[in-house]
């Protein structure tokens, strides 16, 4: 779950971090009022769940309330990379002496969280050589003293080192206490008055920890869903709803594509393998999807009917790896039920059916009764994909 800037700032403020808090405005009038209340120059920032807003023109400086109204009016209701801008944050403009980058994330190879400090903030941080990283014990925050040591070699003076150490301790505490995947304050500005203040914040929470983080997340309001660089399409949202109907197994995780061949594919790794192979053999997938973990017949039927209901879809390829805990017979029954609901015949719709593995003999009999010859493991994933493309043509 990726928090919007204002949500991330609210969350991090609870850890004693000094952040340039904004007023969230959903209308140009509200933005003008916010600017008037702040007094002086403000920054009007679109609230969207991704970075690079400055480059995209979604952060605007306004010197007076009238200019804030104009900036908000220009941003609100427009679409940035598929996301409709529903709100802006109006924040006091800060006079910056210099910028830092402070963050915490995960080093998956080392299996540990890692604190990050850079002597340059903004978008240059990735290319900067002056970046320090330090992994820390997942049970704790990184102690401020250890954080302060990270300035060595970064050309940062001792005066702010101790203060940066304290910021790092708070940021790393936020990472572990909030089950965050990323906590990032960028830039952390030193004002001309010598105060450290975070101007922007990015926080991503581990989806697997959503339940136990509800107490912290609920007060932040609606959290945008979806890990793609765009909001879910209606079909993708419906697939997610079907998947959530029953906790048993996965029959969802759909990504929509523009082709005419619907794919019911799984498990996770085989889905990737088959999708690659379909494209390599010249096929046009209508969707990517993942099925696995022994989903119920009902979930499989609902997903099958959904995929076949997409306009322009002509054929369906059902391909899974040699299944382990997923039952091939349950899959077969679900697919046939879904075809029925979509008003399609098996013979006229199924390009290939290949689910070898546990309960495959039963599945083969079920498909044979519907007039479909199920393919076995002697037909590889690659070959099954090629046959699907051939039969869909």
């Amino acid at each position: 779950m990726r928090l919007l800037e204002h949500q991330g700032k609210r969350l991090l403020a609870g850890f004693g971090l000094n952040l340039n808090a904004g007023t969230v405005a959903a209308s140009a009038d509200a933005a003008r009022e916010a600017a008037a209340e702040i007094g002086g120059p403000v920054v009007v920032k679109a609230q969207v769940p991704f970075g690079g807003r400055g480059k995209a023109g979604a952060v605007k400086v306004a010197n007076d309330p009238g200019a804030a109204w104009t900036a908000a009016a220009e941003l609100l209701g427009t679409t940035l990379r598929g996301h409709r801008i529903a709100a802006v944050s109006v924040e006091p403009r800060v006079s910056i002496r210099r910028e830092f980058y402070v963050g915490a994330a995960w080093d998956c190879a080392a299996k540990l969280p890692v604190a990050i400090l850079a002597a340059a903030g903004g978008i240059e941080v990735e290319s900067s050589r002056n970046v320090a990283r330090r992994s820390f014990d997942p049970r704790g925050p990184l102690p401020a003293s250890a954080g302060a040591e990270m300035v060595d070699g970064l050309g940062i003076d001792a005066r702010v080192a101790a203060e940066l150490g304290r910021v790092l301790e708070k940021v790393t505490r936020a990472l572990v206490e909030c089950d965050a995947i990323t906590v990032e304050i960028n830039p952390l500005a030193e004002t001309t008055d010598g105060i450290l203040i975070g101007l922007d914040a990015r926080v991503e929470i581990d989806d697997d920890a959503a339940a136990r983080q509800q107490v912290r997340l609920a007060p932040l309001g609606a959290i945008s869903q979806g890990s793609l660089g765009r909001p879910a399409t209606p079909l993708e949202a419906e697939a997610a709803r079907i998947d959530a109907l029953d906790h048993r197994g996965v029959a969802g995780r759909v990504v929509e594509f523009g082709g005419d061949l619907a794919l019911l594919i799984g498990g996770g790794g085989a889905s990737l393998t088959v999708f690659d192979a379909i494209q390599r053999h010249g096929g046009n997938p209508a969707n990517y999807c993942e099925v696995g973990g022994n989903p119920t017949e009902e979930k499989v039927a609902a997903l099958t009917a959904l995929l076949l209901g997409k306009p322009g879809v002509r054929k369906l390829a059902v391909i899974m790896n040699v299944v382990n805990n997923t039952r091939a017979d349950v899959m077969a029954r679900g697919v046939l039920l879904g075809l029925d609901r979509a008003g399609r015949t098996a013979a006229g719709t199924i390009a290939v059916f290949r689910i070898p593995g546990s309960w495959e003999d039963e599945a083969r009999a079920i498909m044979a009764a519907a007039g479909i010859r199920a393919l076995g493991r002697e037909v590889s994933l690659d070959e099954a994909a090629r046959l699907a493309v051939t039969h869909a043509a």
Partner: protein
Amino acid sequence: MLLDPKAGILVQGITGREASAMVEDSLAYGSPIVAGVTPGKGGREVHGVPVYDTVAEAVRRHGPTVSIISVPAPAVPAAALEAFAGGIKLCLIMTERVPRLDTSRLLVAAREAGCTVIGPNTLGLIRPGVAKLGTIGGRVDNVRRSFMPGRTAVLSRSGGMTTEIASFLTSRGVGQSIAVGVGGDPVIGANFTDLIGMLEDDPGTDAVVIYGEPGGGAEEQLAERLARKPSRLRINAFLSGRFVDDLEGVRFGHAAVIVEGGRGSVRGKADALRSVGVHVADAFDDILEGLGAPGMTTPAR
């Protein structure tokens, strides 16, 4: 070598629906499951396996050194710590959706206890003809059809692809010394690099087939290790999800880029592995190319 054939196996969460089916299939395959644990259900039996309230009691009575954890995600940290305290040396965590923080913390504890962790989010591992841990292979008739003993190891980030690859190898006459679903999460116990290190000490393994996916840096980390220290093992890899490289970038801040340093793309992984002599198959059917395993025949296209 992972999974000593004589080691007794404990199942934590044995009375669950999935665990119970897994126990039945595993016993039929010959896995020495000696005890189970479900707090509050001590005294029962699951397919003839006695159930205890605590790991300590099960260990005192039966002395298992391997444990399979199949408990709900919120119960995983406590179950794992109980296993480590009970002297378990190999712990397989099947549970999905374990928060990353919990995994990282329990791995710190595992290191201190000298326990090897496989998973979370794994279907398990198998030494064909010896024993299996977890639901890998599913029903016993499918396990026997998919796996056969041999000298090639399979290491896979996908549980399903572990069996798919093994089944493909078996159909081409290439047996397996071990097949491991390493777990589908970004943070896992033993990763490719750790497991290659263990397999290098195994006289029963000559070659390894690795299955990788987009994201994370496990493949790149292995390539760095092989650049530093070449392996006696012949290593082939198959990477899926090439289309993911072409999806629109999903940038959210800079931390991931700083930490992973451009890792994660399938193209980048393939290049990194190729640069250190790993054969990377472009198509699944080419996965055996040049493997040189004994008894291997080049697959017909």
